């Protein structure tokens, strides 16, 4: 089963994402900040990362930079933000995100992106 | 004062603003057979539209301003009024 790591300090958001992803049959792990997410990598790399930006301890950018510097299989990363600003998007891409979405992401949209990034068929 | 009322007619002038909607509604509640004179009215805020649509009062005079009159007729005349503008030059 494809494994997805959801990284967000808001439990509500984690629950929201978990609900959507699990209903599509993916295995979901959670981390409450970038630091904890890095620790979770000890379990092995994930197939996809869903990363919030603003988090205590280590934010989303920081996590992605650390992740991309590691010599492990590099799964795609979705950066989820509440900012629709160009600057943040560029920063997300530079840090290692593969797509930048604005919260709240409607279930159908999120799922489509996840399917694309996990190589799952859309039909 | 854009609204003048008598016992049977409410005369609206220039602009019926969002605040006026409440007054128009109150007047129509108290005067179920009251008529509305919109001849000198240029624009009515959408809130007034709602009040007029819900109350369907008799219109004593339609606005002189055609665009407003057209919309009011479309809104207030029961049958689906089709207003075909043959040549508006738009």
């Amino acid at each position, binding site marked *: 089963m494809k494994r997805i790591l959801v990284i967000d300090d808001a439990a509500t958001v984690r629950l929201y994402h978990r609900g959507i992803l699990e209903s599509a049959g993916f295995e979901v792990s959670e981390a409450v900040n970038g630091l904890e997410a890095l620790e979770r990598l000890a379990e092995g790399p994930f197939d996809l990362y869903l990363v919030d930006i603003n988090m205590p301890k280590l934010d989303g950018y920081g996590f992605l930079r650390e992740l991309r510097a590691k010599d492990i299989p590099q799964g795609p990363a979705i950066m989820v933000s509440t900012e629709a600003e160009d600057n943040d998007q560029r920063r997300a891409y530079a840090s290692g995100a*593969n797509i930048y979405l604005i919260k709240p992401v409607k279930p159908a949209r999120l799922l489509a992106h996840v399917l694309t990034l996990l190589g799952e068929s859309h039909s | 004062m854009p609204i003048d009322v008598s016992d049977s007619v409410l005369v609206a002038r220039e602009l019926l603003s969002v605040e006026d*909607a409440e007054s128009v509604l109150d007047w129509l*509640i108290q005067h179920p057979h009251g008529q509305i004179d919109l001849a000198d009215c240029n*624009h009515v805020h959408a809130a007034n539209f709602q009040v007029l649509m819900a109350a369907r009062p008799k219109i004593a005079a339609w606005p002189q301003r055609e665009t407003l009159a057209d919309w009011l007729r479309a*809104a207030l005349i029961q049958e689906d009024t089709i207003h075909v503008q043959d040549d508006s030059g738009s």
Partner: protein
Amino acid sequence: MNPLLNQFLTEGRDFLEAIGAKLLELERAPEQGALIDDLFRLVHTLKGNSGLFDIPEMTRVLHAAEDLMDAVRDGRVAFSRELADQLLEAMDFVSLLIDEIAEASTDGQPPSTSHHAKDAVRLGAALRELMPEHPQTPAVSDAPDAASVSAGTESGSRPETDDLLDNLPESVRHDIQDRLAAGEPLCWLRYRPEEECFFKGEDPFFQIAQLPEPLWRRLGAREDWPPLPELDAYRCVLEFELILSVEAETLVEHFRYVPDQVEIRSLSAAMPDPAASASSSESQSESEPSSWAGLSPEARESICLTLEAQREILVLSDNPSWLGGRLRAVGATLAALLTSLGRDPAATGLETALEAALATDSGTYLLRWLDHQTWPASKPAAPEPIAETVREAIMAPTATDSSPATKTADEPVKFGRRADDQLATVRTLKVDQTKIDRLMNLIGEMVVAKNALPYLAARAEERYGVRELAREIKTQYSVINRIAEEMQDAIMQVRMLPVSFVFQRFPRLVRDVAHKLGKDVRLVMEGESTEADKNIIEALADPLIHLVRNSLDHGLESPEQRRAAGKPPEGRLTISARQESDRVLIEITDDGRGIDPDVIRRKAYEKKIIDETTLERLSDQEAINLIFAAGFSTAEQVTDLSGRGVGMDVVRNAIARVHGSIDLRSRVGEGTHLRLSLPLSMAVTNVMIIESAGQRFGVPMDAVAETVRVARRDIRVIKKRLTTVLRGRLVPLVALNDLLALDTPQIANDDDELAVLVVRIEKEYLGIIVDDCRETIDIILKPLAGFLGDLTGYSGSALLGDGSVLLILNPRELL
């Protein structure tokens, strides 16, 4: 309740509390960047959470708060008291919404909070007012949805547009056909303004009136009109439908601030024009493999966005240390995208391109590879592009497509089962209080039932003469007794609450009151994690608030007065809690003006609380304690803060009701120190059983000083009161039967001695004459329910081992 909503509410409350705390902290130390960051993050996250639900009022206010905090963070706006006030008010509003949602939500959906729209607008504007350049229009939260105008598949929009034309009157249809044939661009528009739009200063009709003359129009309502008196003129239910002769782009631009409220369809593409439709399908088949035609709008969007994003990543010219990983992630993303489209990445040369990119530390090779691939177009390749918002495209169901992926997407996501699955990881349980109360009652009954065993043992021995059995019963009893006590203790632990439950409101309270009074006060709180029984903590809330208000109002001086007295201008108020054996001690200390015993003496005398002789005899401490006397208030004038008709006597009684005591020390000019001592738990009470008028009553042992037998002849009447001398001290006596209004004389024993229960009330001794004093027992005190609850003089009732009910007297209230 929907677990997601539930989670949101719980987390929301936590956030609000944290936001409040941080704001107060910031006010004290406005230069702390870390605090501002924290605060921004909290508001930001809360706003994000609220966006998951349809609570535009909350989101609006939080959005404004977030923007403001962002400005503070960037140094564009200085943190000020005014700003804190405004933010606190905004958070109060959010808190109100959360409470309302928690209360009203039944089917898992938050109720409409649209009746707060006005407040939300006002608060949002007030917050933005504080920013240097408040933007004209707040950014639409789902801007990208609206901004990237793309389109649905043809199969999705065409049948609907056809239907639309079918419904038009014949004359209009002909007119439209003719115009289309002449190449005129025509659009159908439906505009459904949101219900709260009037409160946002919008006039949908103005929007519509600005458009050119329509070819056809319909003005309707989303629901039937109610009778006039019930009409809400300010809830917009209007619905405009028009056909116009304009380009779709013009309409999109015209309605750019309300993209989610309009539907726009270009009629050119929808008309049965053989030439146009042929060319459209042709161009599509030219550029895209047929298998892509069935992609859902979401899938199409995700593929296009993903491709676009990878391009943007690849053209980045920075060269960070993690570039390799970033390139490999792009490679993995592109490979997944191909697989998702049913193509084999290996056959496309992607891997080679990635290797070349890694070798050259540049995205160039991958970019080149991207350019050589064929991808689904973001917009169907029709000659006349249909302008629709993405949102609209997503909503339009594709008639032919019933694939599983689309289904999953369309069905509401079910969270319920997932929440169950998560239980395994939950470490904290939230339990309804009634369940704990039930456990409490059960253990109470258990203690009582257990108490029947010694009776049974005694009976076995005395009545039936089976000593052996009596011993066994006693052994069993001690086992059950131990377990019952442990259970009791365990349940007690569950009921323990930290005093922070009450303390947490003090920072805000102190701040607000101090501001109002123009005083500078520094609040210090200690020992917030000290725990006590829930009932105690709850009973503590009001008295403590009153005491704190008192300190602020009467105790602490204004900065000028303090300076004049040679004190630092900022007053200090300390509230601390700690546990000492089986008591919780709460101390409230201020360094204010203190209480002047002479002033108290004079007032007490003026109010006829004491007579002249007492006036002279009273020590300073005794004088200060007069503050607790009923009807005493030292305030020169009643302020709206502490003078709410509640005196210190009420505070003391409230504390006494939970078997607590209060001690007050004060020095003129130096400050006042209040000490509350409370039991850790009030569940088990040791009472003495007494008899009077043939009934049994319990008296809490903590009130009982001693029990004595007093010969009737030693009782004198002094100043019409019964008194006796005990150990050289004059003790007033009252008969319990008199107190209870029972018309029966107390019964003396054979030696004509009366049983007297000496109780101590605030250092005064009083003898209560009863018929007999019996054993002491442990009971679980239950408050009197129903109409009995109004009876004063009783603190509650308890079940006894023999099943009878014992009423527990409250000596303080009896007198």
